[in-house]
């Protein structure tokens, strides 16, 4: 068995306003696979993602306990360099959020923040990242145009390219296709399938069918608890827990 990409141990999170929280999540994230976190809204999926790359530091928290091991190091330790961490574990949000910059600058933003100054190297990274995100052919001749001139699907692939440029190990996608049409959705899904040999994906799908389509491992969350976890697609065929089955069959959610 290869090393796990992430090991979550008894993760507990509670927001100051008491809104959404996690009640002790223990879970392994498999490397070079699409790890699907699914379940109804308010289940804690986004909170897990925010905790993994420490974006949760920006929120007011009442409680943050447990461990997230990444190469043997607890990411929740106080001495973790969160900027370096966020380069290694990137995130794409549900709505495309192009930065108010050019297409080119959207991709180089993270690189420049990391201290990259070599113009030539950045050019190369931009081309590579845009090609990986299958956007290069559509934008190579207008890299200096504002990013918001792109269509929604293109913008979301730009957000992906922005993350890819940092050469991350783990890419987290939080309902990345919820605002996209089926063709744009297919491009994002295809990207994940094509590159999972090299990266570890954590995908919060925006519906059960996407979950079943994409999952190499699947975890079902309900109200801050991990109800069921399974490798492969077994969870969608023979769920063990009644609640998982009800959700998959569309009885609630």
């Amino acid at each position, binding site marked *: 068995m290869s090393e796990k990409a992430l090991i979550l141990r008894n993760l507990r999170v509670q927001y100051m306003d008491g809104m959404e929280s996690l009640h002790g999540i223990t879970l392994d994230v498999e490397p070079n696979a699409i790890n699907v976190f699914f379940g109804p809204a308010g289940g804690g999926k986004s909170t897990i993602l925010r905790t993994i*790359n420490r*974006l949760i530091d*920006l929120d007011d928290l009442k409680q943050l306990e447990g461990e997230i091991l990444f190469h043997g190091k607890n990411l929740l330790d106080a001495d973790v360099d969160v*900027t*370096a*961490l*966020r*380069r290694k574990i*990137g*995130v794409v*949000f549900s*709505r495309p*959020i192009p*930065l*108010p*910059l050019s297409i080119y600058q959207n991709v180089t*933003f*993270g690189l*420049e*923040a*990391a201290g990259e100054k070599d113009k030539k190297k950045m050019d190369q990274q931009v081309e590579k990242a845009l090609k990986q995100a299958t956007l290069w052919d559509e934008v190579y001749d207008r890299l200096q145009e*504002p*990013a*918001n001139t792109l269509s929604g699907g293109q913008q979301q692939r730009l957000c992906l390219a*922005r*993350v890819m440029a*940092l050469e991350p190990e783990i890419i987290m996608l939080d309902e990345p296709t919820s605002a996209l049409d089926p063709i744009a959705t297919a491009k994002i899904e295809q990207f994940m399938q094509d590159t999972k040999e090299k990266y570890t994906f954590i995908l919060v799908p925006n519906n059960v069918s996407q979950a079943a389509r994409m999952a190499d491992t699947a975890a079902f969350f309900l109200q801050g608890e991990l109800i069921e976890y399974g490798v492969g697609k077994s969870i969608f065929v023979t769920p063990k827990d009644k609640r998982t089955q009800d959700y998959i069959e569309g009885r609630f959610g």
Partner: protein
Amino acid sequence: MGFNLVRLIALLTVLPILGIVVYIIVQGAGSLSLQFLTQMPTNGMRSGGIFPAIVGTFYLTIGTAVFAVPLGVAAGIYISEYAKDSLWTRLIRIAIISLAGVPSVVYGLFGLGLFVIFLHFGTSILAASLTLSIMTLPVIISTTEEALRSVPARFRIVGRSLGATQWQTIRKLILPQALPGIITGVILGLERAAGETAPLLFTGAAFFLPRLPSSILSATMALPYHIFVISTQVPGMPVQIQYGTVMVLLIYVLGMNLIATLIRNKSRKNRQW
């Protein structure tokens, strides 16, 4: 019916400013000439130009900007981006609001006490600029804060998620987006400072100077104070010169206003969110 009433009231609010501007221009345009703008006053200010007053007001505007802009923008950034909601920040906010409500003559007296006397700057451009800066700070701080807050939070989250520090995110993403709003606020603040008389009374304005100020420690003539002087203190003052001087101040201040408006309109067109 109701709509027309509202429209009428709206038009009524325009009348006073329109009236003032037209009246001043009609009365003052006659005395406006290149000599008037570029020459020293002669014959006890009853003839000649108002060059030193124009230059003085310009110096004071720049001087005010030098102190108030860095301080005000930095304070605005701190309050908007860094300060957590605490007793301390609430105190700062109350202080800023109070500062904005202090009568300008009080600033003048404060400047006299602190800068002119205690710090030995004397009646000088330096003391006057510092006094005007303190008066301008609340405007700059609150418009900076407002401009930064109007930049959507999602850009901050994305910036941080790409491994940028908070300061990198502010400097490269948030500040450029807020800049037009900040510049507008700065100009409006400076415009108010340029038109003030009371804060200059005890801190830097001279009744009459035969030459231009030689350093920041010299006193200076300034348009608003000059208007006060020639309207009340000089017997036999030709009325055209008074109107002409008022007109120059008005153009100076409205010109700044116009620049601020242009910047705001241009940035609205280029805005990407």
